C-alpha cells in the first residue's frame, strides 16, 4: 500500500484545507445563537402547546436556516471580506473554503431547513423561514448592503423574523403579537449596530460599503441611533400592553427603555472628540446595554407567559 503522506509536503496548501470548524464558521454561529434564542421565546410564549421534541427540532431547523443564510452571505461577500481587516480571516477570503463549497452548503442547508421545518411543524413557519433566507441573502446581501446606507435598518428585518417563525412553528399562524416581536428586534438593531460602528472604526470605506457613519457622518449616526431608540421604546411598551405582555413586562420595559434612552441621548449629545477622549465610553456602554436589553426583554416575555394563568392584562 502506498503511504500518501510521503508525497505531501509539510507546508503549503495541505495546512489550508478546511476543517469542520471552518464550515461551522461559515454558518455565523453568533448570529445563529441570537436566532435560536428569539425563536425559542416565540415558540414558548405562543398560545397552545407544542410537543417538546417537535419544538426542539423546529428550533434546530430555524437555526440551520439562519446558518444557511450566513453561508450564502459569506459566499456573496467574499470580495468585501477580503479587503476588510475584521473579516479577512473568514474561511473563504483566507482560502480555506472554496466559494463554490460555501454556496453549495448554503443552498443545501436552505432547502433542508425549510423542508424539514415544514414537515416537523407546518408550512406557514417553513414559508417564513424561506422568506427570511431569501431576504437576508438577496435583499440584504446582494442588493441593499452595497447600494444604500439604510442597509442596516432594512437588512435588520431578516434578523427580526426568527421569533415570529418560532411562533408560527407552534401555532401555524402569525398574529399581531408575533409581529410585535419582529418590530421589537427591527427597532433594536440600528442603535445596537450603530453604537458598535461608532467605537469600532470598521473599514467599510475600503470595501465601498455605504454605511451610515460613512455616507451621512458620525453625528448623523448618533442622532439616528437616538431616534430609533425612541421608536424602540414605543414598540417595547406596545408589547408590554399586548397579549404577550403584562404588569411585569411593563415594569421591566420601563427600566430597560429608560436606561437605553439615557444611553442613546448621551451618545447623541457629544462629539467625536469627546468620544475619543474617554475611549468611546458612552458608545460602548450603549452597545453593552443593548445586549442586556434584548436578552432581558425576551426572557421576561417567557416569565410573563408562565405567569399568565395567575393574572395578566
Amino acid at each position, binding site marked *: 500500500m502506498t503511504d*500518501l503522506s510521503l508525497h*505531501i509536503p509539510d507546508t503549503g496548501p*495541505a495546512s489550508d484545507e478546511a476543517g469542520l470548524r471552518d464550515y461551522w464558521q461559515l454558518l455565523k454561529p453568533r448570529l445563529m445563537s441570537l436566532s435560536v434564542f428569539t425563536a425559542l421565546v416565540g415558540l414558548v410564549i405562543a398560545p397552545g402547546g407544542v410537543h417538546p421534541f417537535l419544538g426542539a427540532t423546529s428550533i434546530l431547523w430555524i437555526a440551520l436556516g439562519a446558518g444557511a443564510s450566513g453561508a450564502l452571505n459569506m459566499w456573496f461577500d467574499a470580495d468585501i471580506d477580503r479587503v476588510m481587516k475584521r473579516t479577512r480571516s473568514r474561511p473563504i477570503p483566507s482560502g480555506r473554503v472554496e466559494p463554490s463549497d460555501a454556496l453549495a452548503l448554503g443552498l443545501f442547508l436552505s432547502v433542508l431547513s425549510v423542508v424539514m421545518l415544514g414537515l416537523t411543524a407546518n408550512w406557514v413557519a417553513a414559508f417564513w423561514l424561506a422568506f427570511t433566507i431569501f431576504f437576508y441573502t438577496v435583499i440584504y446581501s446582494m442588493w441593499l448592503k452595497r447600494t444604500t446606507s439604510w442597509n442596516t435598518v432594512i437588512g435588520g428585518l431578516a434578523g427580526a423574523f426568527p421569533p415570529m417563525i418560532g411562533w408560527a412553528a407552534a401555532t401555524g399562524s402569525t398574529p399581531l403579537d408575533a409581529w410585535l416581536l419582529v418590530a421589537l428586534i427591527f427597532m433594536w438593531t440600528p442603535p445596537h449596530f450603530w453604537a458598535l460602528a461608532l467605537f469600532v472604526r470598521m473599514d467599510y470605506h475600503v470595501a465601498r460599503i455605504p454605511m451610515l457613519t460613512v455616507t451621512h457622518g458620525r453625528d448623523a449616526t448618533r442622532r439616528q441611533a437616538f431616534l430609533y431608540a425612541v421608536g424602540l421604546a414605543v414598540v417595547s411598551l406596545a408589547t408590554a400592553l399586548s397579549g404577550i405582555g403584562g404588569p411585569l413586562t411593563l415594569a421591566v420595559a420601563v427600566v430597560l427603555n429608560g436606561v437605553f434612552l439615557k444611553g442613546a441621548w448621551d451618545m447623541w449629545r457629544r462629539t467625536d472628540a469627546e468620544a475619543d477622549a474617554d475611549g468611546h465610553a458612552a458608545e460602548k456602554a450603549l452597545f453593552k446595554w443593548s445586549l442586556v436589553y434584548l436578552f432581558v426583554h425576551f426572557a421576561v416575555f417567557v416569565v410573563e407567559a408562565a405567569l399568565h394563568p395567575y393574572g395578566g392584562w
Partner: protein
Amino acid sequence: MHRDHELHTRRKGRNFGLLAVLLAFIVLIFGLTVVKIQTGGFAEAFDHVSRPAIVPQDAVPEVSE
C-alpha cells in the same frame, strides 16, 4: 512506524465529524417519526378510517339496547 500526516489527521477529524452529523440526523428523523405517529398528525390526514372525533354529534346514530 507509521505516523499520520497532519492532513490525514485533519481529514479524519472532518470525516468523523460528518459521520456524527449524519448519525444525529438519522436519530432525529427516527425521533420525529415516532413523535408524529404518537401524536397522530400525519396518520389522521391520510388514513381511510372513520374518526369519531370529527363526526358531528348530530350525525351519530343512537344505539338502542
